[in-house]
């Protein structure tokens, strides 16, 4: 089986993640979709590392994971604070920042 399939899979997962971000209104689900997109790109990294026979790909996937972790932590903290003040976790409710 050629390794390209993995790339197609990661592209597909990435698109689904993007669609999720655009369509779902619950902040946490949006956040999960972003995680999905990140994982999709990690898969692509690992596949390329294998294709090129160079470990850097994996290393980069590793760094992406760390960054994703930080992002999740801060993101969820924000969602919690918004939930506390607004009693709703929907993304559309926090829309004061406009002219």
């Amino acid at each position, binding site marked *: *089986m*050629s390794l*390209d*399939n993995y*790339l*197609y*899979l990661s*592209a*597909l*997962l*990435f*698109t*689904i*993640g*993007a*669609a*999720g971000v*655009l*369509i*779902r*209104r*619950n902040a946490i*689900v949006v*956040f*999960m979709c972003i*995680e*999905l997109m990140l*994982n999709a790109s*990690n898969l692509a990294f*690992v*596949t390329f*590392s*294998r*294709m*090129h*026979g160079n*470990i*850097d790909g*994996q*290393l980069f*996937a*590793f*760094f992406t*994971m760390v*960054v*994703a*972790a*930080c*992002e*999740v*932590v*801060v993101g*969820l*903290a*924000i969602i*919690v604070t918004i*939930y*506390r003040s607004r009693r709703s*976790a929907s993304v*559309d409710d926090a829309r004061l920042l406009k002219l």
Partner: protein
Amino acid sequence: MNIAAIVNNQTQSPEAVLFFILAPIMVLAALGMLVVKKAVHSALLLAVVMVGLAIFYIANEAPFLGIVQVVVYTGAVMMLFLFILMLVGVDSSDSIEETIKGQRIGGVLGSVGVGFLLISLLSRAELGQDYVGLDLINSEGNVQSIAKVLFTRYVWAFEVISALLITAALGAMVLAHRERILPRKSQRELAAERVRQTSIPVAGLPGPGTYAQHNAVDIPALLPDGSPSDASVSKVIAARGELANPANFRMKESNGNSANGEAGEE
């Protein structure tokens, strides 16, 4: 993806089998995340996708990453999501109809467009050299090779990433921390509050069967004026309708009014 492409410089066939089983599951799970109403279900589906990915990492000669994916990512990060979901309310579900005009169609079209373009680009891209595979690099083990590269070339990146992690943690605490506006209630105040509350009996609830012949759990205690106190029996039993009638166990009256008591006894 024509068949001929699969034939040349291919991996062993079992990997193909693994791929063609697991990939559809993962895609379905991902699609499920979009469609499912409850947030918890989409969290679990995401966990499925992540575990699938871990397996693929291992299949791609990256066992360390696979394990990290499972242990760190799926284990910790997904659990964090579930924890937040619990905080926010598990049953918070989105209503189906869309609030922003044209958002849903635009979203789907946009992402499908991007996906289609990515895939079409990928299909036309080619490496110019056949796959090398990581056997040589992983000769003394995947973790050792990663460590060797991590702590030589990317040591600065590693330090910066750790700094980032710490700041993120700190940030989360600062964000989630709530200033205590009112002083913490000491035990004395809690007791006084409980006395002031009329709804909860200060002396505590009478145990079942008090002033009655039997202390079984389904027999309500009798209040001094003889009426049964339903606070003394657990709501669940009452809900199940297995409440016994206290009249049967009323003490026989020494004279006249014991007659009507007798009647209820048998």
